[in-house]
């Protein structure tokens, strides 16, 4: 009895680790493939799949050199910079506005005259904006942006991404603020602090994890977006996903080695962020989905 128990437990653990390792390989293989393709010469790509540098093929940094110093390098660097500016700018704005709204929704009572809405209705109205398929609002956006002269501008794109991210930011931060103990704020208010002072000096410092998680999410959404950039930009403010999609659909066929290096340039920042702050991301995801 005892023996069969340990045996079946051992069998189960072997199976568990096998499956986990298989999934690890599945998760990492595409990234490995990007890395090795970016150091292949064209001939090593066209001869069929080659798996190991120095064994199967001779690695070269040609694609990287071309990417960073070749004739398209200025466009690459500009797209990358645009992506970074738009992602950071819109995430900062979404977190700032989302924190204010999230705080308001957990500390005050609102009523929308006419509709009879209360806090919960307002919060649901805000998050429901995130559920919309973006294609529904993107055409009016494009027309509005043309008339307002915001098309293909960085501030226009920051604004668009802020609106796109705001519902999510409000949703997560509202939940976060609701979980904070309220006594500290109240004693500060009794001691004569204003509401805004209490918010800035007490609530915000206590909420750093929530703010960081929200910021990272908003940054990731903007960095990875393709549809908004495609419709609202064409040259000066276009982003890295635009550049990748444009290069990948060239009529002369994709330059695999070059595109691999380019893709790595696009995915690297977010992977680094994920590795550094996995804890925050997990928490933000879980809060955003379950609550």
């Amino acid at each position, binding site marked *: 009895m005892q023996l069969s128990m340990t045996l079946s437990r051992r069998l189960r653990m072997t199976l568990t680790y096998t499956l986990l390792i298989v999934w690890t390989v599945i*998760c990492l293989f595409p990234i490995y493939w990007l890395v090795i393709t970016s150091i292949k010469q064209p001939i090593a790509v066209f001869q069929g799949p080659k798996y190991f540098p120095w064994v199967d093929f001779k690695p070269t940094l040609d694609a990287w050199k071309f990417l960073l110093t070749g004739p398209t390098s200025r466009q690459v660097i500009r797209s990358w910079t645009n992506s970074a500016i738009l992602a950071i700018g819109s995430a900062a704005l979404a977190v700032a506005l989302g924190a*204010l709204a999230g705080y308001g929704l957990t*500390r005050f009572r609102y009523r929308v005259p006419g509709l009879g809405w209360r806090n919960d209705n307002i919060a649901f109205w805000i998050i429901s904006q995130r559920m*919309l398929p973006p*294609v529904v609002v993107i055409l009016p956006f494009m027309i509005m942006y043309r008339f307002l002269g915001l098309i293909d501008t960085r501030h226009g794109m920051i604004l668009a991404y802020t609106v796109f991210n705001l519902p999510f930011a409000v949703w997560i931060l509202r939940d976060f603020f609701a979980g904070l103990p309220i006594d500290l704020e109240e004693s500060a208010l009794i001691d004569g602090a204003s509401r805004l002072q209490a918010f800035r000096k007490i609530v915000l410092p206590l909420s750093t994890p929530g703010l960081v998680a929200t910021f990272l999410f908003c940054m990731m959404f903007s960095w990875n977006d*393709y*549809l908004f950039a495609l419709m609202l930009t064409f040259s000066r403010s276009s982003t890295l996903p635009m550049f990748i999609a444009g290069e*990948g*659909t060239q009529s002369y066929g994709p330059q695999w080695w070059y595109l691999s290096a380019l893709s790595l340039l696009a995915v690297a920042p*977010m992977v680094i962020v994920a590795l550094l702050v996995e804890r925050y991301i997990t928490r933000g995801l879980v809060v955003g989905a379950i609550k």
Partner: protein
Amino acid sequence: MSPQAAHPVTERSKHFFLTPTAVLILVLSIFPLLFSLVLSFVSWDLSRLEGGIRFYGLNNFITLAKDTRFWHTARVTLTFVIGAVALQYCIGLGIAMLLNQEIRLRRFFRVVFLIPMMLTPAAVGYVGRMLFNESMGPINDIIKHLGLPAVRWVSSIPMALPSLILVDTWEWTPFMMIVLLAGLQSLPPEVFESARVDGASSLQIFRHITFPMLLPVSLTVVLIRGLEAFKLFDIVVVMTGGGPGTATETVTMYAYLVAMKNGNLGYASAIAYALLIMVTIITLFFLNSLRRRAAAAE
């Protein structure tokens, strides 16, 4: 479901907190939504931004109802959503249950499993195109080494959509996994212990305890992923370009083509609204069943 403040007070400064967000969403989200509805009732040729606009009544929607290409894209989108979400849920739940045991390197596995969902979809679509390539890609090469016949992935009509589903599953299973893992960890351990003492098998525990108790979380993640999957656009553009032919063309992509290639803003808006209606019906259905479950639980 909704956090309530311990002491919600009425103060004059309260408007300072909520107004900026409310105004921004009204102006840049609700207004475009209405604008788009108006657009779906007009005929507007993009090549003539001024003066090209005239009232068109229900004609856009009548055209839509007869447009076989639209119904084709709707079917593609729906097939994609159902296939991708089902696959992601099954794999995500499986991995979450593997990780919900006493295992070594749990943190390592969790971090690695998170990576795919952080990646730019445009780049992911491109990776998919490379991996599924029939002559240069490693997937067919591995299949051949296993002694199986090569598969024509993105270049054949029956396999192009499944290829997209596989790539999307690679990218988004992490989301399911993380939320379901948190859901599993929040279940009370006593229930499982007493079931085990009563001699229930692992399969029985899963069927009669784990799965039913996890159902609210399951429905939520399926809804969230489903809503996201309906927006499918970037991976398709890069991986198949909607092809071969229109085999993988999604509704969003069709609306984009009608707006930008044909310059027909009115009809494109009607297509977009049809998608919105589809998504809304499914969402309401889901929220309803969530609410009924919640009520039944109480």
